[in-house]
């Protein structure tokens, strides 16, 4: 299941809705991405996430389908927010559930790595004391993290 929304999410409620009443699940992994205030001297006042309505949902659905093709997942959920967010606020939630922990851990990691390099979202940060925002640059580390999932393919 995927959702793209402006509103916050409640992790406990989402996990309960995804796994409630199921007795075939032995492992639930959740990952939550949140807005960091900054690093070093710089402090972020806010972060605005722009996205591509339509393609965002399509791309997240493709990513989720790929995870389900690779691992025996009993259930999965990706929620990604857009709009203006403050430091400490939630950005993204990934939940994976499986009979055993390894599939749930690996699928959650795959979903995040793949999402970061292919889901059409763009972050713009506004620094404290500055009105002009700046677009966050993509990181080579994220590309490397995503590509490791494809190294063992023929």
């Amino acid at each position, binding site marked *: 299941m995927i959702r793209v929304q402006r509103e916050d999410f409640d992790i406990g409620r989402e996990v309960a809705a995804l796994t409630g009443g199921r007795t075939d699940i032995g492992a639930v992994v959740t990952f939550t*991405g949140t807005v960091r205030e900054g690093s070093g001297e710089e402090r972020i006042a806010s972060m605005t*996430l*722009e*996205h*591509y309505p*339509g*393609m965002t949902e*399509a*791309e997240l659905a493709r990513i989720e389908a790929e995870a389900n093709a690779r691992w025996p997942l009993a259930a999965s959920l990706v929620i*990604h927010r857009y709009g203006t967010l403050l430091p400490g606020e939630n*950005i*993204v939630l990934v939940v994976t559930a499986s009979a055993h922990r390894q599939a749930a851990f690996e699928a959650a990691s795959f979903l*995040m790595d793949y*999402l*970061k*390099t*292919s*889901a*059409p*979202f*763009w*972050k*713009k940060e506004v620094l404290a004391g500055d009105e002009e925002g700046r*677009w*966050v*640059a*993509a990181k080579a580390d*994220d590309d490397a993290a995503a590509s490791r999932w494809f190294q063992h393919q023929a």
Partner: protein
Amino acid sequence: MSVKLLYFAWVREKAGRAEEIIDLPRQVETVADLIGWMGTRGEQFRSAFERPDVIRVAIDQRHVKHDAKVAGAREIAFFPPVTGG
């Protein structure tokens, strides 16, 4: 060929618009051709498309490489590398 063009993030800001419907010239066959042609559409577009290597493109809401053909596209989007998550 009439196609909807979409712009996101700093490509949108530099181009000065979020979307438009346009007829592509016949000589534009690939995404690379299209990016080259976009840069000739005035100062704002020249600025937005001056570095083709950092422009990512989606055709009909799927990522494509710069050697992809544009024939038959209904919607083409231009944007920088994505930074979600």
